[in-house]
Each structure stands twice: as C-alpha cells, then as structure tokens.
C-alpha cells in the first residue's frame, strides 16, 4: 500500500482512501448490513481533471506501467475497411438546431469479461460527468453491432414520431412518454432539460428503422451490449466537435486492448448533410519539436537530450533525439489531449524526473519592495486601536439584505449594495456596505462575555460604482462599537479623537476634522453626529437606536462609530 501511495504521489495522482466495499457499507449503514460484502481492497484515486486517459483502470494501469518502464506505449492503429464494407453514419440537416455533431467508430471482435464490461460502462459515465459536462457537450452511445445493420442515420424528429423500447424497459414508448417516464429517475432526470423544449429530438436509426438511441437521454434496449457482445458500434453526438473527437479517441484507445487485434480500431465514415464525408476516429498523432535546453532551463535541471527523451517516453510521450542531439521530437498520442503547449511537455518531463529531485534555488531577482499604502495605514491603526482597549473582530463580507438595510432602518435601494444571483443561504444575499452589522452580530454571539464589550474592525465594504471597470468597488472602513450598561457615547467620541490624533488631523474646521449633529436612521435621535474631514463626510458616530439593538438580538445600549479611512492614505 505504501509503495502504491508513493507511486501515485510521484505520478501526480492522489490516493484518497484505501478501503473495501465492506468498509464503505459499514460506515454508511452500520456493521450489520456490511456482513457478506466484499473484503477486496479498493483504492480511491483522485485523477487530475485534464487527464481523460486515466479515468478507467485500463488507462491508469497502462500509464503507470509505461511510467515504470514495464511496457512500451502501445501504438493505436486505425483500420479503414475496404470500400463499401465499413459502417456509415449519415447526419441529416435537422440535427443542426439541437445536436449538430457526431462521430463514430467500431471495436471489432472484442472480448468482454464482467470486469471489462463494468469498466466500459463506468468510463462512459465518468467521461459524461467530466469532459462532456454532464452530457451537454457530448453524449456517448455504445451498441451491439450484431443486432443492427448500417448505414445508420442521425436525424432529429418531433417527439411524437419517435417510438422505441428504452434500455431495460419492457415496452415501447414515444419520446414524450419517455420524458415523463424518467422525470423521477434519480440519474436521468438531470439530462431531460437538454432536449425537452426543442421542437425536434435527436435520434439515431439503423437501416431497418431500429432506434439505437435518443441522445443524450437513453439508448434503445434492442442494441444493448452485454458481456457476450463481440462487435461494438460507438457513436458520440454533441454540440462541441473537438470534445466529441477526444471522447471517441479515449474510449477506443482504452478498450481496443481487448479486441482480437489489440489496439486496433475499425474506422467508420460520417456523412454530413452537405455530402462531405469524414473518417473517424481521428486517432491523431501529433509531432512537436522541443529543444532540450528549453526543458532543462524551465525546470532547473541539466539532463542530456537522450535522458530527457527517455523521461518523456515514460510519460507516454514517445520521444527521440534528432538533428545531432540539439532537438527532441515528441510524438503526442491521441490519449494525451491535455498536451496543448510546449509547457505541458516540460511539466511531464519534470514529473518523470521527480519534482522532489529538483534542486531548490532562490531567484536572483533584486527588487525593492513596498507595502500598499492603504494596507500600511490599516496595519498601523489596528495596533493602536488594540492599545486603546478595543478588541479586533474579523467578520463575513457577505450578509443578508436585512442586515444592511431593514435592521438599520434603511431601504435596500438606498444602500447601493452589490447583490448575489445564486446564494446558497439567506446569509449570503448581498455584499456588506457597512461593517456595523458584522460587529453587532459578533456581540450577539458573545453575550456571555463580561461587559463592556469593545470591538473594532478595519476591513473592506463593497458598493456599486458605475465609474469602475467592473461596476463596483471596495472602500476601506473602520468601525468600532461599545456595548455596556450605559451607551458610552463619550468613549466612542474619545476613540474618534484618538484616531484623528494618530492620523495627525487637527480638530479644526478648515484643515482638520469636525463633527456636526445630524439624524441617522440607525441612531438614537439627538445622539448622532456626522464626521467631516478632508472636505467630505467620512462617516457617522453616535448611540444606536433601540430598534437596531433589538433587531440584532441585543439588550444593552450601544454606541458606534464608522468612517471611511481611504481619504487618509
């Protein structure tokens, strides 16, 4: 187990958990139900999102064996049958509005066992969830070729005209009935919306009118494959042709291992509405040339070109040195659709070398560093405010609409708050426009602490602003609250004076700060003042209105101060 863990770590996979079926059932349903379940050790492996070739056991084992140099990377061969003998998939014009693209291929004389069959079905599901984006971009259909006869037609018809027996059902249904049938199915109901409201539904027929499938929902029962199936017809339909090609390539490269002629795939011809034809699968091998110095330089190692070629070959990128040793030619197999730039090749070389074998060095870059002035001011103030006897709080930037409006006696539209479209709970509906609710909620959660409670926070609030390139901006606010048996207005006022003293702003109207009595919806009438400095209003202070205090589930008087500190940077 340790060894396998090490191997996974080096290769870039995460061995999530070592368990067994028995353990899983034990944990979920209790030990009683687990009796009789399999004890065979199961490895749960996390595969990176861009490695579609490692999603099935076949691909994973193949990749690891090539990595350990136990086998050579197989060469995948496309066999084009003689004229007239190959399978054809004809796409008609009606599909263009619902699911325009399709590719197809055949696995000839394949031998399935129970494990291989399960793996085959499993890979399709994993690809559906991953690159196919839950069947929206591509849907895969696999059929027993011996139960049908080509040429096949991929077309789109009104739902009432499509009638067939879906997989594992006992009777025929029309397409509209099928939609209703699967509306409650925990697995398939998520895909119904992809075609439900279209006037025409996609459907694939064979030359006798037998329905192969209605993508992306379900295949027909007639063509279902079993462990005994010998010839498989694979079709991938979708809205993204690049991904459809990749998906087809992955399936055929992975499972052609079990064909009579291993790693060979029989090609099929796809005929487009305009008459053009194309042979699939593409199984494109791409050649790239990379200079060994580039690889060495980017990683920080110095390997010879031939050892670099060997490292890359271990990562399923067959390479050899060319042109008197100053270049490496790399053949990128169809299983590695994730290689899209020379830097991907550099990464694979580094993985084969072993990240932890690379010598760690410090860059020789000389730079003169600066702290962002706004943050520097914040840091300095925080220390002095703590010294003044106030405790710092760190609160959430997202809150409910009531927190910044109703509970403070204001209307939400007056706050210019940024609103979230998809909150999971009511606690995250808007981004805060004031720090006050956060501090009041903190006090409410700490009612049992000894009084007085003196809290402050210096952090960002978010407001809509049409002058910025995204339409909103942050302001750095400072907020302090004093919660005790008596409101302590003089304490909050004293804190403001102290902060101004630290900022070297004198208490004068012309060139300093001043406060003027005002009314504020969150404040007690006659106990509220607005603070002016640097030619603008920077905030308010005062005793909080009893309504506000009650709405935040507090019981004692409270005074508060909130100002924008950005003018002082």
């Amino acid at each position: 187990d340790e060894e396998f863990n090490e191997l996974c770590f080096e290769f870039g996979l995460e061995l999530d958990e070592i368990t067994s079926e028995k353990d899983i059932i034990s944990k979920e349903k209790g030990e009683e139900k687990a009796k009789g379940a399999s004890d065979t050790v199961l490895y749960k492996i996390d595969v990176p999102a861009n490695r579609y070739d490692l999603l099935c056991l076949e691909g994973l084992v193949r990749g690891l064996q090539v990595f350990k140099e136990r086998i050579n990377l197989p060469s995948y061969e496309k066999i084009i049958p003689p004229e007239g003998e190959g399978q054809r998939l004809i796409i008609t014009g009606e599909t263009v509005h619902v699911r325009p693209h399709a590719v197809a291929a055949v696995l000839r004389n394949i031998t399935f066992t129970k494990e291989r069959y399960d793996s085959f079905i499993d890979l399709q599901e994993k690809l559906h969830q991953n690159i196919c984006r839950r069947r929206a971009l591509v849907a895969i259909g696999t059929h027993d070729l011996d139960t049908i006869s080509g040429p096949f037609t991929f077309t789109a018809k009104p739902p009432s005209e499509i009638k067939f027996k879906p997989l594992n059902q006992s009777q025929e249904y029309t397409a509209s009935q099928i939609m209703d049938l699967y509306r409650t199915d925990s697995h398939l109901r998520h895909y119904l919306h992809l075609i439900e409201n279209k006037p025409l539904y996609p459907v694939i027929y064979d030359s006798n009118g037998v329905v192969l499938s209605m993508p992306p929902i379900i295949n027909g029962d007639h063509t279902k494959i079993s462990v005994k199936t010998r010839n498989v017809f694979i079709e991938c339909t979708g809205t993204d042709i690049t991904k459809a090609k990749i998906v087809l390539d992955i399936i055929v490269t992975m499972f052609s291992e079990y064909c009579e002629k291993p790693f060979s795939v029989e090609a099929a011809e796809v005929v487009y509405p305009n008459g053009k034809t194309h042979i699939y699968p593409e199984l494109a091998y791409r050649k790239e040339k990379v200079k060994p110095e580039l690889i060495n330089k980017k990683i920080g190692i110095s390997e010879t070109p031939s050892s670099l070629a060997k490292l890359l070959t271990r990562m399923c990128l067959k390479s050899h040195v060319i042109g008197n040793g100053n270049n490496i030619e790399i053949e990128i197999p169809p299983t590695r659709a994730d290689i899209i730039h020379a830097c991907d090749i550099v990464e694979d070389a580094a993985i084969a070398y072993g990240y932890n074998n690379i010598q760690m060095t410090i860059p020789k870059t000389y730079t003169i560093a600066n702290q962002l002035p706004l943050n520097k001011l914040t840091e300095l103030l925080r220390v002095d405010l703590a010294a003044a006897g106030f405790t710092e709080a760190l609160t959430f930037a997202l809150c409910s609409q009531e927190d910044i409006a109703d509970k403070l006696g204001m209307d939400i539209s007056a706050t210019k708050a940024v609103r979230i479209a998809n909150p999971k709970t009511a606690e995250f509906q808007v981004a805060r426009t004031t720090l006050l609710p956060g501090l009041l909620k903190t006090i409410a959660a700490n009612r049992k602490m000894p009084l007085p409670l003196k809290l402050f926070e210096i952090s960002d609030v978010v407001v809509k602003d049409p002058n910025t390139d995204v339409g909103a901006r942050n302001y750095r606010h400072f907020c302090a609250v004093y919660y005790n048996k008596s409101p302590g207005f003089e304490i909050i006022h004293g804190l403001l004076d102290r902060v101004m003293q630290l900022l070297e702003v004198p208490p004068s109207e012309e060139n300093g700060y001043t406060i003027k009595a005002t009314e504020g919806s969150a404040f007690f009438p006659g106990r509220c003042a607005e603070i002016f400095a640097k030619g603008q209003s920077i905030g308010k202070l005062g005793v909080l209105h009893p309504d506000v205090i009650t709405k935040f589930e507090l019981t004692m008087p409270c005074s508060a101060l909130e100002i924008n500190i950005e003018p002082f940077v």
Partner: protein
Amino acid sequence: FTEMPTDNFVESSFWNFDALFQPQQHPARDQHDTFFLQDPAEAPELPAGYTAKVKKVHSQGGYGSQGYKYDWRLEEARKNLLRTHTTSASARALYRLARQEKFSPVKYFSIDRVFRNESLDATHLAEFHQVEGVVADRGLTLGHLMGTLRQFFNQLGITQLRFKPAYNPYTEPSMEVFSYHEG
C-alpha cells in the same frame, strides 16, 4: 515582495477566469462553485485589445498553444462575480507590467479575501483568505519556485515539504505542496 492592490471583491469573469486560460465550460465556473452577481451583473468595461487576444487563444490557439478550440463568448466573460481567487489581481498586475515601456523584474504578493459558493462545514467557509505570490524575471525555473516556497514555509516554521504534480488551468508545470508535521 511588493504588495499588489487587491481592493476589489467584485471581479469580472474575464479577469477571474478567461485571462487565466480557464475555459468557459470549466466546472469551476458553474453556479455551485462561484458567486455570480445579480447587480451589477455585467462588467461595463474590458480591455479591448487584450480581450481580442484572449478570445483567439481560447478558440484557436496561439503563442505556441493549440488552444481549447471552442466558441468563446464575450457575454460569458462579462459576467460579474465575487472573485474566487486573488490570482485575478495578479493577472491585472501582470497586465500592467506588460504595458510598461521597458520590462523590469518584479516580485509581487497579496493576502486578501476570496469567495467560493460552498456549503459551510467544519473545515469550509464561503469566504477565506489567500496568499498570492508572483515573481517575474528572465531565466526563472521550477527549482526557483520550489526554493522560494521552501523559504516561505520555513519562515512559518514548516520545514518538511514534498511537492506533488497537480493540474491548474493557468499554471504548467503545476504542483501542490504537502507538509508533514511531526507527531
């Protein structure tokens, strides 16, 4: 390391995803991982010339890359969201650096809040802080990156480190850092 300005929680999909080569069909852009905004829903302004270049690399490739070869849509890039990583601020900083007349090596850092649309549990919050660091210079290697990370963690008192290959749409080679605690 100079501090980067990160004082914008609201970011456009362009800077948060597209400029970082994260494809528009990527699962992280789903409703369940990102907080999209209802108001303001779209970013009014995106850098024109740069946007065209980003569109080209996603849909056709360029600068030595094959690209993703899908139809890149401007409306998708305009969607506003609460940033999911401070890398969007790094992208802006690097863009500013690129527009300087003469290139000068830089080292940037930032520590600020990010937002992910996840259910809360004992180890996950919807808001958390990220530390970000960027070094831009000629002749940098993977070894330099690992060395810098090692120094950073040593300063925090973490000395046993191992690096593991990982996948990130915008970094290649990519790695995750694991540290071991005695006991």
